[in-house]
């Protein structure tokens, strides 16, 4: 599965009501580490069928960033059953992001 770009309008349906756990990548175009994280998340999205990866642009979707108190990016939030279960801030290796899914 590819990474799904998500806006405020589709957030509830794509993320909160998702049957699968969701890794939500809060990012911005101007953020270098976010761009370096993108291919890592793409690989997770392609390899795993037991989760969904979505991308949220914090400049376009400031309501979502505010709602989830994302003040520093890249920030990957794991949502499970409509709730935040864990988060990882900064440029982290793939294992660390997969670890979020494994431990939570």
């Amino acid at each position, binding site marked *: 599965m590819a990474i799904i770009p998500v806006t405020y309008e589709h957030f509830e349906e794509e993320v909160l009501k998702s049957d699968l756990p969701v890794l939500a990548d809060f990012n911005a175009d101007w953020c*270098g580490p976010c761009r*370096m*994280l993108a*291919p*890592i998340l793409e*690989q997770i999205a392609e390899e795993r069928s037991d989760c969904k990866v979505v991308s949220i642009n914090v400049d376009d979707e400031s309501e979502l960033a505010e709602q989830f108190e994302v003040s520093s990016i890249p920030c990957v939030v794991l949502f499970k059953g409509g709730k935040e279960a864990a988060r990882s801030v900064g*440029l982290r*290796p*793939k*294992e660390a992001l997969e670890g979020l899914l494994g431990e939570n």
Partner: protein
Amino acid sequence: MFDIIIIGAGPAGLTAAIYARRAAKSVLVLEATAYGGQIINTPDIENYPVAAHISGFDFATKVYEQAKALGAEIVFEKAVEIEDHGTEKAVITAKNRYIGKALILATGSENRKLGLEKEDSLVGRGVSYCATCDGAFYRGKKVAVVGGGNTALEDALYLADLAESVTLIHRRDSFRGEEGTVARLKEKPNIHFMYNSNVTKLLAEKRLTAIEVTDRNGAVTELAVDGLFIAVGRIPENQNFAALIRLDEAGYIQAGENCHTNLPGIFTAGDNRTKEVRQLVTATADGAVAATEAVKYIAALS
């Protein structure tokens, strides 16, 4: 099976991927964290031919995209072990075992840190590990250099021509570096020396504003500086290859300009190899050499 497996997606590894793909070899690049290597920490590269100004991040992204567009497969897994089975080499990660005809080890090295609080967050905001990279940002300012080897001495010399003043802080009472360089340092009126001393604290608001220096007797001095250049050595990331690959005392892979290691079919490129000049341009040059040698090696197999 891949023709060439490259470990490390920094400038050396990605350049090797570009050359190997242009030679029509199948290429897998394994990267432990994210692409780019340590060049991403450099805000402005001014010494790479043609690109008068480019950020380390932009440079890394362009090389990454170039290698990908040429068909290199880039996988984010850390190589924990390599195996040599003659015409086949294996690279083991936590999840997979990859087989290639040739390997290029381009894992680079990391800066040895002082281990002080805020050291990481102040990189690019007053703390630097590379005087030739970042020195120009400190024209007319006050800087300190910490270390006692050749790199520290050369950094201090280089900075003395740019900065208003340079304080060289060394934990011993004499330098390990070359005497000629020490003599030249002592001729510079704007270099000050603090022997038998360690940097014990970084003081910062948004950027570094001062450092605390403690001498052997426990006397503490606060030194106002705009920049601190840390040159206390580098740690090559070769630990996972040490069982097979010959390293020097400092842990660098013993290899000449042809990038050959002690094992046929295993090559090295970039900062983790023994060399005099560790710069972006020499890393990319190594990538080209190692890939070309690997292609030659594979051709001779059949």
